């Protein structure tokens, strides 16, 4: 089977400081990869390199495009990459306001990606928006409200709906549950798990919350100081960590 994403030797430096380096992995269709590690370990840097928000200093990111098979997204033209960003890719930001248009209604936020790929029937666009609000448990009568009137958890669910409405094949998420209350987090995780399964999504989720990866990720990558220090099936890594740092990470969380 062709991997959906083939990452080779990605490196990104901020001057002399390492953002991340020597990162290679394959992601297969339907697979969810978790990236964990302490603050400053390079998780966001890596994710942004993969999603085309940052240009890495070295390495390649091959994505299995619908039309032409594996293509290096780093060297492809900007219009092609931006087209991927609003069709086959989705990016869920930690802060919903970075991923939403706060001055546009919930329906407009969900509809934007459809209109960006030339949906031109208002009734259909609105129908999709209602459907997707329902799928992220936002009631239909909030469709014309702006996200500023929503709670943090609702904003995050709206961001997810806005991203998934075009049926992307790969979702990047950076701390999707960060900054939310524990009970709100649990509901969001449940929802995400349901959607991932239902849509057979491939995803890369960055988090420092091991509960999130336990629930969502098939495989895990542990990062420290910009390097990947351990990879494996999620249960394997969490239940039988090999690297001393991972052991520390797992035990410290379990003690909390």
């Amino acid at each position, binding site marked *: 089977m062709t991997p959906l994403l083939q990452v080779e030797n990605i490196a990104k430096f901020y001057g002399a400081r390492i953002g991340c380096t020597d990162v290679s992995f394959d992601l297969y269709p339907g697979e969810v990869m978790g990236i964990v590690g302490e603050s400053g370990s390079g998780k966001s840097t890596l994710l942004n390199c993969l999603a085309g928000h940052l240009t890495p200093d070295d390495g390649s990111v091959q994505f299995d495009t619908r039309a032409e098979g594996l293509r290096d997204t780093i060297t492809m033209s*900007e*219009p092609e990459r*931006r087209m991927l960003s*609003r069709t086959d890719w989705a990016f869920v930001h930690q802060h919903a306001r970075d991923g939403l*248009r706060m*001055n*546009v*209604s919930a*329906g*407009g936020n969900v*509809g*934007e*990606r459809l*209109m*960006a*790929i*030339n949906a*031109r*029937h*208002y*009734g259909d*666009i*609105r129908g999709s928006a209602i459907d997707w609000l329902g799928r992220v448990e936002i009631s239909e009568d909030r*469709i*014309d409200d702006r996200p500023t009137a929503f709670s943090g958890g609702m904003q995050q669910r709206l961001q997810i709906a806005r991203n998934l409405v075009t049926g992307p094949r790969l979702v990047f998420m950076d701390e999707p549950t960060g900054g939310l209350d524990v009970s709100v987090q649990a509901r969001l995780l449940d929802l995400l798990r349901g959607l991932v399964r239902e849509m057979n999504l491939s995803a890369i989720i960055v988090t420092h919350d091991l509960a999130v990866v336990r629930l969502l990720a098939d495989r895990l990558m542990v990062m420290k100081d910009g390097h990947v220090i351990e990879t494996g099936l999620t249960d394997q890594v969490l239940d039988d960590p090999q690297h001393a740092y991972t052991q520390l990470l797992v035990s410290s969380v379990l003690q909390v």
Partner: protein
Amino acid sequence: MSDYNFAYLDEQTKRMIRRAILKGLAIPGYQVPFASREMPMPYGWGTGGVQVSAAVLTPDDTFKVIDQGADDTTNAVSIRRFFQKTAGIAVTEATADASVIQTRHRIPEQVLRSDQIIVYQVPIPEPLRFLEPSEVETRKMHSLEEYGLMHVKLYEDISQHGDIATAYAYPVKVEGRYVMDPSPIPKFDNPKLEMAGIQLFGAGREQRIYAIPPYTKVVSLDFEDYPFQPTKADHACDLCAATDSYLDELIVDDEGSRMFMCSDTDYCSTRRKQGHNGAQGVPYAEDAA
């Protein structure tokens, strides 16, 4: 008049503006940056349009200026006087007699010919500004033809008002490529943007010039189930009985009586001279004095 260079601006500046105009005509709907000059009038008074007019006027031209369709408002009168004084050119109120027409907020009712130029005063040239404040990002959207956001604006309109409520500055796509703000003309005028004349748009404060060459395809954006409609008041002109012109509504007394009249004053008076008489109109000759 000899105190000024012809049409106020120096030849160097006019050449620079003409280059921007030619580039604009070569890339219909594309906003060309230009180095806007200080003009002896404040921004918001049509300094962009005035600079474009100054660059295209020749001593043989006949100049007309309208503001909201009228030749006799302060703004129109002062711009007309400005060019009379600095260029010594002939002026007119008759659309048919003008070779260059500078306008704010209207396109004349009378169909323009291929030997006429219309110059629009533009306050905000960027149609995407409403939802995307970043200039870097809007430029990228234009260059990559990413116009989904324009429809988000129309979507918001329908979801809030039940219909596309945008009545002025209604966005258009020019020759299948650039999305353009036609300046704050009523959407009733949008179909006229496909015309024989040359259309030039000048934004002074924002330092942009853009253009529509003759016979260019100009499509007003819409949805399949909410098609574009060039609406106007459902009424005839009370002075000249025209049913095909854009109307202003006036309250004429303390009881709130209304009157509808053509916003294009030249169109209205021409019709009245021809003998057309509206419900509240008096025959032309009688009130001419």
